[in-house]
């Protein structure tokens, strides 16, 4: 159970809670390991949290070895993309995520793979500053 913020970090699960201010339905893609799946891109402050783990739980991820698989693991970022097994459209409902902004929420009900495509700006700056400090000191 942890939050993940960095680029290309991913989760794999049986069910995930997706929150985003701008979800978009993408293409239907056929991947050898999981078969037909629907792609979604989520922009403007998005998150994906594992609600149900894979069963049986594998040691490594199916699509990516480094995928997080534990319950309540959460990706928090500016933009992410996800693959949801099956061709049915996810139904997003509008919720009040913060006092100012509304967001859209959906829960997947089949194999889900989500990956961060763009972290928050402050995370990128923090990494850049850390690298600069490291280069100065070395």
């Amino acid at each position: 159970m942890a939050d993940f913020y960095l680029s290309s970090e991913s989760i794999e699960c049986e069910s995930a809670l997706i929150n985003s201010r701008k979800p978009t339905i993408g293409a239907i893609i056929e991947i050898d390991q999981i078969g037909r799946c629907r792609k979604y891109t989520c922009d403007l402050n998005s998150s994906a949290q594992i609600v149900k783990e894979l069963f049986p739980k594998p040691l490594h991820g199916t699509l990516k070895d480094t995928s997080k698989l534990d319950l309540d693991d959460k990706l928090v970022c500016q933009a992410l993309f996800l693959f949801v097994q099956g061709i049915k459209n996810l139904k997003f409902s509008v919720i009040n995520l913060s006092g100012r902004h509304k967001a859209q929420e959906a829960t997947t009900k089949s194999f889900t793979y989500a990956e961060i495509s763009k972290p928050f700006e402050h995370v990128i700056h923090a990494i850049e500053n850390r690298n600069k400090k490291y280069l100065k000191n070395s």
Partner: protein
Amino acid sequence: MNTFDLKDDFKQIESTVRQPYGKDSWITVTRETIEYGNEEVFRSSEQAIGDTFSYFSESQKLKDQLYITGINNLIKKNNLLQQTIQLAEGFITEEEFEQEIDQNPDQFIISIREPHGLEELIVLKNIVKKIGKNFSVDEVSEIFSISLDNYDKFLTQ
């Protein structure tokens, strides 16, 4: 009448020579000869020229394949978008939508495959650079049908 077996008397020999051409490319010259007994009979010169030019450059061939894949995938996305709009507008039901996709998967579904090698990834990188837009890795993967597993390799080129 003198009869003979074509398979035994005629021999078809194919030889391929690869020559460097420019910095990244090479020419593959395919030469086909037909032998009858000990005599060597060449194929027509047109065929030889055709073979030479069709294998002009391996990288050009890869480029063509990727461009064709990209255009096909964009057409598939467009087809799916049309179907999704029809579903959203209520012209078709969800069952009809799924049925249409199941019956014509070639028109809607993008299949992702493993890249043929490092050369293909280098060619792909050049194409993306020429397009000049900031694509994310998943967008490139979707348009050109390249597998997820090779993102890291692709990024480190």
